């Protein structure tokens, strides 16, 4: 297909490189440097989608981020992406684009029947219609709405692309490379500041690429190129195109979205697709420019209707004509440039200017070129369904509310300009309260809130001279304060046309008895009548009007519709715009991919993986791992076809009968040193610590200030002023912060230092009746008898030539030891233990067996210390000193902690001695009682007791030990189980604790 709308030479595209692509299955081509939009328009294609609500045919409206309509489903580089903005996405070889929100095709869309039923789809339609009957919502209304609404289709494939995050710091961040941005960046760079210049588009220069101006006798485009080249050569400057700064957060943190490689045909597998930059800038220049706003008229959403600056950009940047019979509909001078550009390319435009006959530099130029200008004129309604064919235009009376004459003219496109709206999104996000500038009928930034300075069009200065001056001055002054260097720069000579005043006209009246749709917001199908309905129904706050009508919502965030919506509300309400106010601007300014937000934090890189020094051994020996925080711990070691249940039973049984070893490296370890260490421990733990001798360990319990148990563990006195504390795996980090808090803030007078040594030591527990025999083989020269190394004893000794610490402590309730060696020797220790332990029947055991062992012993762990229990709830009141003060002591006297019926720990066994009780089950008196069935407690931990060969659980239950001997039901609606249980003591095995002392 030949490109009937491509000009012969204009544009910045590379005509030497053709790129083929498809649109709705049709093969087409464009050139390198085209966007999907410019290539389609070059091929004469305007109908690209259907509107959200009425499924009306829609075409391109803008040429960049302002585009409300042209959102396509695009497939390229092996993935499919919905809602891609056709005016931003660059063409790449093999790309395939399809229209969204239409079925069976964009040309014939069944949903368009909504357009004829539009009287039934007013504002608030969903709220009003789908209310009753309530039961219809899930089954009928919601699925129907979901099917009918929505834009593209999200891919369900795994995203194979790479995304990155980058953290950057700079003196000055400049957002936008138009004239004011270039000037700011240049001035700051010359002062030696570290500058980042970000440009959303592929090409630098902003309006300099399309405006008919000259700077220092260079064309705008050439001057921009000169400045960019110089900036790129400076080591203190980073220049980024395809990079959108989309969010302004606290403390001058800005976030930028860089499209790194979607436009590349070939890339290395390490090249990310997109990159998210977190930029902490000392100062920020917001040179985000402005967006042209439309004038509202009948059927103003018909394909072929463009913003006038977009039409000019298509000609000047892409060498593409949006039409060959253009109507230019304007209330200001800037659209005349579009007309002149058409004329230059031998196309005859007609200008409809809402202003009365007058003259200005650009009007005179248009007149001298013989362009047909009709003053006091405007478009009333566009004719044509899938493309503009003609327009009904009218000559306005002096009141601009009625017509002197109405006629119809042929046209194939309408270029509309209702003046310019500064892009104040980032300024507003920074916290800047905007102010209304009467002169331009739009909001501009007010007093600075952070370190943001808006310049150029973003600040309401629409002349090149002012923008440049603004840019140079601000860039220079802001950076000089940081670098203490000020380089004088001569402000260049500018040649630009002087524009006359614009007309405060934004909505075309309708002749009597005509009622075409006049859209304010294209993306959400919000028309003038929708806003009128909202106001008629009593909505007053602009935020409410927005939500009721959906004006300014969705992906384009109302870039072209917000101000017209405000104008409409203020007209109906007889208020002025600043009284109505504006809705909140929120990040992101443009849609960004989820992949970019996530970055590299996916899969294995989601969080760090902590592995013990013995990890490889576990892996080789069929360990099945379980996550314990960031740690990987062996849950069980699988033999043959064993299930978790079988394996853990075997491992636990072996500990009870022979000996087993368990990797306990993950336990938190904290080194505590200093002359006041004993006093400190005495305050931290509930039990007494002043008299613990050197070479002894003690079990300790620590509380929060509110009396709730925080953690438990053993602490060993290594030497006079040196203690070794262990914490649970889960609480290690919290306990360290807790200790640091008290040492630094509450008791700074205590001379104590704490440091985490979790990763310095590898630990292995040896547990079981044969553990002493095994230990004596591991330490042939050490007296390991019960007298020399009693329960809670501690010794330092060489383990086959390496330093080691031996603690006689037990979690399993068996005779047990824990050996620590330096991490580097962990694997050595483990392998040696496996070797030496063979003759004693030693087997490794995982966390599942470990749980079984501790549960049947009634030792509490995380599920019991769940942030709700105090020491007496878990039978640890024996560890609470009555004589001394400690953290949380004062709270233990609280009334609720001391009522008799408080929930306390008990043991449970099923009456049938067979059914395992699901953890989390509720304990109730009557399993068939009417809901809500009074809950007497809950099952915290469950196991299969290897000692008694039947299930056993720990539970936290009302009245605690008073319930022993009684029968209840443990019900788990989640598992659909109800098991009759008997309450017994929580110490199911060896209640006197003989084994650990044996």
């Amino acid at each position, binding site marked *: 297909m030949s490109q009937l709308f491509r000009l012969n030479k204009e544009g910045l595209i590379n005509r030497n490189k053709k790129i083929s692509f498809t649109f709705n299955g049709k093969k087409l081509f464009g050139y390198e440097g085209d966007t999907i939009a410019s290539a389609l328009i070059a091929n004469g294609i305007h109908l690209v989608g259907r509107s959200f609500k009425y499924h009306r045919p829609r075409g391109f409206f803008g040429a960049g981020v302002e585009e409300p309509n042209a959102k396509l489903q695009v497939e390229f580089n092996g993935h499919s992406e919905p809602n891609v903005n056709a005016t931003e996405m660059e063409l790449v070889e093999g790309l395939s684009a399809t229209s969204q929100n239409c079925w069976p095709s964009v040309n014939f869309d069944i949903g368009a029947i909504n357009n004829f039923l539009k009287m039934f789809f007013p504002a608030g339609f969903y709220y009003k219609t789908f209310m009753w009957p309530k039961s219809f919502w899930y089954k009928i209304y919601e699925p129907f709405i979901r099917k009918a609404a929505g834009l593209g289709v999200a891919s369900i494939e795994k995203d194979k692309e790479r995304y990155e995050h980058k953290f950057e710091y700079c003196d000055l961040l400049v957002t936008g490379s138009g004239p004011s941005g270039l000037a700011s960046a240049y001035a700051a760079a010359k002062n030696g500041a570290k500058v980042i210049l970000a440009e959303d588009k592929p090409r630098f220069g902003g309006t300099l690429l399309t405006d008919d101006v000259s700077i220092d006798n260079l064309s705008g485009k050439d001057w921009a190129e000169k400045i960019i080249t110089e900036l790129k050569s400076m080591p203190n400057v980073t220049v980024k195109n395809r990079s959108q700064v989309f969010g302004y957060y606290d*403390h001058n*943190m800005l976030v930028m979205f860089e499209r790194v490689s979607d436009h590349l045909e070939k890339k290395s597998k390490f090249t990310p697709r997109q990159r998210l930059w977190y930029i*902490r800038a000392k100062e920020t220049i917001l040179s985000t420019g402005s967006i042209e706003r439309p004038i509202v008229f009948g059927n103003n959403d018909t394909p072929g209707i463009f913003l006038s600056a977009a039409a000019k950009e298509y000609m000047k940047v892409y060498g593409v004509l949006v039409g060959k019979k253009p109507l230019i509909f304007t209330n200001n001078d800037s659209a005349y440039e579009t007309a002149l550009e058409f004329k230059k390319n031998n196309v005859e435009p007609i200008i409809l200017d809402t202003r009365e006959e007058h003259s200005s530099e650009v009007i005179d130029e248009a007149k001298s070129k013989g362009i047909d200008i009709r003053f006091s004129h405007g478009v009333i309604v566009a004719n044509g369904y899938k493309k503009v064919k003609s327009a009904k235009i009218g000559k306005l009376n002096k009141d601009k509310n009625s017509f002197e004459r109405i006629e119809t003219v042929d046209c194939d496109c309408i270029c509309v300009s209702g003046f310019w709206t500064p892009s104040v999104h980032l300024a507003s996000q920074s916290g800047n309260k905007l102010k209304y500038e009467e002169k331009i009928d739009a909001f501009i930034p007010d007093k600075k809130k952070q370190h943001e300075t808006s310049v150029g069009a973003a600040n309401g200065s629409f002349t090149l001279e002012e923008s440049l001056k603004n840019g140079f001055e601000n860039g220079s002054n802001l950076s000089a304060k940081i670098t203490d260097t000020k380089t004088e720069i001569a402000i260049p000579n500018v040649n630009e046309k002087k524009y006359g005043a614009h007309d405060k006209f934004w909505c075309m009246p309708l002749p009597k008895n005509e009622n075409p749709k006049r859209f304010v917001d294209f993306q959400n199908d919000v028309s003038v009548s929708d806003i009128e309905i909202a106001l008629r129904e009593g909505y007053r706050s602009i935020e409410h009007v927005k939500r009721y009508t959906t004006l300014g919502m969705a992906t384009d965030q109302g870039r072209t519709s917000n101000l017209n919506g405000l104008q409409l509300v203020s007209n109906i309400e007889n208020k002025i715009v600043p009284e109505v106010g504006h809705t909140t601007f929120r990040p992101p300014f443009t849609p960004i991919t989820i992949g970019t937000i996530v970055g590299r934090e996916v899969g294995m890189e989601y969080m760090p993986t902590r592995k013990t020094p013995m990890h490889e051994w576990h892996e080789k020996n069929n360990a099945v791992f379980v996550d314990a925080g960031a740690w990987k711990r062996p849950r069980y070691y699988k033999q043959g076809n064993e299930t978790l249940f079988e394996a853990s039973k075997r491992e636990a049984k072996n500990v009870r009968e022979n000996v087993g070893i368990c990797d306990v490296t993950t336990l938190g370890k904290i080194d505590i040193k200093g002359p006041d260490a004993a006093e400190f421990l005495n305050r931290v733990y509930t039990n007494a610590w002043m008299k613990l001798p050197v070479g002894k360990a003690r079990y300790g319990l620590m509380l929060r200030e509110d009396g709730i148990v925080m953690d438990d563990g053993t602490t060993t006195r290594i030497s006079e002023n040196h203690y070794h504390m262990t914490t649970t795996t889960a609480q290690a980090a919290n306990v360290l912060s807790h200790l640091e808090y008290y040492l*630094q*803030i*509450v008791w700074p007078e205590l001379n104590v230092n704490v440091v985490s040594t979790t990763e310095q030591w590898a630990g292995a527990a040896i547990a079981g009746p044969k553990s002493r025999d095994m230990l004596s083989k591991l330490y042939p020269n050490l007296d390991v008898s019960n007298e020399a190394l009693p329960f809670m004893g501690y010794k330092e000794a060489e383990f086959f030539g390496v330093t080691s610490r031996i603690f006689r402590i037990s979690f399993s309730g068996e005779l047990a030891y824990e050996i620590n060696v330096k991490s580097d020797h962990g694997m050595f220790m483990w392998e040696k233990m496996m070797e030496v332990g063979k003759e004693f029947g030693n087997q490794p055991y995982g966390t599942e067996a470990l749980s079984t062992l501790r549960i049947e012993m009634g030792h509490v762990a995380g599920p019991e210390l769940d942030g709700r229990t105090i020491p007496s709830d878990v039978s640890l009141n024996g560890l609470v000193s009555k004589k001394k003060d400690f953290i949380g002591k004062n709270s233990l006297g609280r009334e609720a902690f001391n009522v008799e019926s408080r929930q306390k720990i008990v043991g449970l066994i099923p009456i049938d001695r067979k059914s395992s009780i699901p953890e989390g089950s509720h304990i109730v008196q009557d399993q068939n009682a009417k809901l809500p069935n009074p809950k007497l407690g809950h099952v915290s931990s469950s196991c299969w007791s290897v000692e008694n060969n039947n299930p056993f659980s720990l539970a936290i239950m009302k009245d605690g030990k008073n319930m022993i001997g009684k029968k209840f039901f443990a019900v788990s609606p989640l598992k659909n189980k109800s098991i009759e249980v008997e309450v017994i003591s929580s110490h199911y095995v060896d209640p006197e604790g003989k084994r650990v002392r044996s």
Partner: protein
Amino acid sequence: MLYIKCPYCGLRAQKEFSYGGDATVKRPNINEEVSSKDWDNFVYMRKSPRGKHIELWQHIAGCRQWIKVQRDTATHEIFQTAKVTEEIR
């Protein structure tokens, strides 16, 4: 993301810190009699001001020091940071 000046390490991103609550709360002295009311006030009662608030942060991914930060709870403006042994005025 806030930008917090650690008095030991300098300006660092918020993600290096963890929040620790009101810095003006004083724990009753150890081994000293304290009324239930005073204790409850210490454990539970906190002001939730809109505006200036002196609070504790710990530089957990840095020097691990607890520090004082005077911050505006509405705007997030940070006026001053100090070591916990120093006063914020």
